[in-house]
């Protein structure tokens, strides 16, 4: 089932600065999507449109079968969560527990039920020991995990990560990506749209969308998208290491079987 249908979406901040042109795609329930593209390609604006933060768009955004408009905004928003780039600027509460509670308060969850929900999602994101901590005592990665816990506590069907790992150190980045994969295993119905610069993350996704200058250039499985290395190079994007290496080897006349899909398999094949 498609949980999101975007049809002919265009958006411009003003007459001279058009950001999105005629973007159409759909998201299927339970899949992990990665949206890659250069700075200024319109990725974040697209996320803002999906969250209803930019309302003056043209075209249709249909989420969970409902068109995104003023009337449906609250019910749609309560089913989408978003994790932004800057860990500090989305930490609303004064402690970890308060921040996870923020969304619950907005959804008018009764107070008696909050504590167990907070404990549950703090444990799932590995923040159970930090419930009383203030944001200034947490690392960037920990703050992002709190943001994820806060989003999960609201029980969303779709989570958007808007470059959620780009301000983190490599360790924090890896932890967040591992957490996302773990969440997917636990909630098969959860759809994830990750906006990212990290092509290695995109290689692990179910589907990859490539954006350039406000349009969707390619959409497909990672192996399809990243095999088109020349098309990616034309818009100054690189493919994950495995695809780059495979292309370079093929260029030098090697024959690599179709069933080799990871760097490890390739290494084994080459050593044989």
């Amino acid at each position, binding site marked *: 089932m498609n949980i999101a249908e975007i049809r002919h979406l265009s958006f411009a901040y003003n007459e001279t600065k058009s950001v999105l042109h005629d973007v159409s795609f759909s998201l299927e329930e339970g899949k992990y999507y990665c949206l890659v593209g250069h700075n200024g390609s319109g990725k974040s604006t697209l996320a803002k449109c999906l969250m209803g933060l930019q309302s003056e768009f043209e075209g249709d955004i249909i989420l969970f079968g409902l068109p995104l408009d003023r009337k449906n905004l609250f019910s749609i928003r309560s089913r989408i969560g978003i994790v932004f780039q800057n860990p500090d600027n989305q930490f609303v509460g004064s402690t970890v527990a308060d921040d996870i509670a*923020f969304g619950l308060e907005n959804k008018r969850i009764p107070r008696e039920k909050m504590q167990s929900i*907070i404990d549950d999602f703090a444990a799932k994101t590995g923040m159970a020991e930090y419930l009383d901590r203030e944001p*200034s005592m947490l690392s960037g990665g920990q703050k992002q995990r709190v943001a994820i816990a806060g989003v999960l506590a609201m029980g969303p069907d779709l989570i958007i990560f808007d470059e959620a790992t780009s301000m983190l150190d490599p360790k924090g980045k890896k932890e967040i990506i591992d957490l996302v994969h773990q969440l997917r295993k636990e909630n098969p119905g959860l759809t994830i749209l990750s906006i990212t610069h990290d092509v290695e993350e995109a290689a692990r996704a179910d589907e990859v969308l490539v954006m350039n200058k406000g349009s969707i250039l390619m959409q497909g499985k990672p192996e399809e998208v990243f095999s088109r290395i020349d098309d990616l190079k034309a818009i100054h994007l690189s493919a994950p290491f495995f695809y780059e290496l495979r292309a370079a080897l093929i260029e030098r006349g090697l024959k690599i079987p179709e069933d080799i899909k990871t760097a490890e398999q390739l290494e084994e094949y080459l050593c044989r």
Partner: protein
Amino acid sequence: MNFALGKYVPYDTWVHRMDARAKLAATILFMVAVFFPMATWTMTLVAQGFLLLFVSFILASTKTRLRSILTSLKSLWVMVLFLLIIYVLVPKATNTLGVAWTWNGWTVYWDSFAEAARVIVRLVMMIMIAMALTSSTKPLDLTYALQWYLSPLKPLHFPVEEVAMTISIALRFIPTLLEDAMRVMRAQSSRGVDFAHGNLWKRITGLTSLIIPLFVSSFLRSEELANAMECRCYDPREKRTKYRKLHFRVSDIFLLLAMAVITAGIITISAMKIDFFALMGIVAL
């Protein structure tokens, strides 16, 4: 940076455990009590001495270190000097404590010193009680207490919850903005801006290179924060449930009553100009 006053220190004492609303009310009652004048100097000494003992006991109970109390009182010496000069130069019409000394026809009364001391002791007590409150109460709990006291204004369309939310966000962002300020300062210093030397004008123009980037980054932060809040279904016009709840206990009522009795007693003694010593037949100053 060291702000002794206004910094929460996470201990677990009976003062910490008290309800923030009770503490806020008790603090205000105490401040009222401090400001009531007594009929005679001896009575002033008794009343202020009693209050000083009381506030010292409370502050000691919060386990606030003596050193941090002294640091926050340090800046008072300017005030001491200023008050002394004023009171010595402008003596009151009636002086009961007598002449300290005369010099070239200029009379200095002991009352001037007593008067200055009284104001200083009052200020010290105010600072001490404020310290006791802020070091034992989380800023957020204070915000909730304030919200609770303002809630009767809600029918008058006073945005109580929005104000409380604004204050709690402001408090939450203080460390973040301080960090920002430090970063901008280091960045500008490394580009040759000197914040510590030069004449006043140079230092002020140096400061603009700190303030403007700080303003810009704060506005960017606030926009992103507003987006994040909106995405998590925040709507200030809608009703929200509350995660934090303050609990009024018997001990809170007890302390509040005790404080009310003390304040009422002080006000009565002050208003009726009661002098215990005269009642006992002792002539005091």
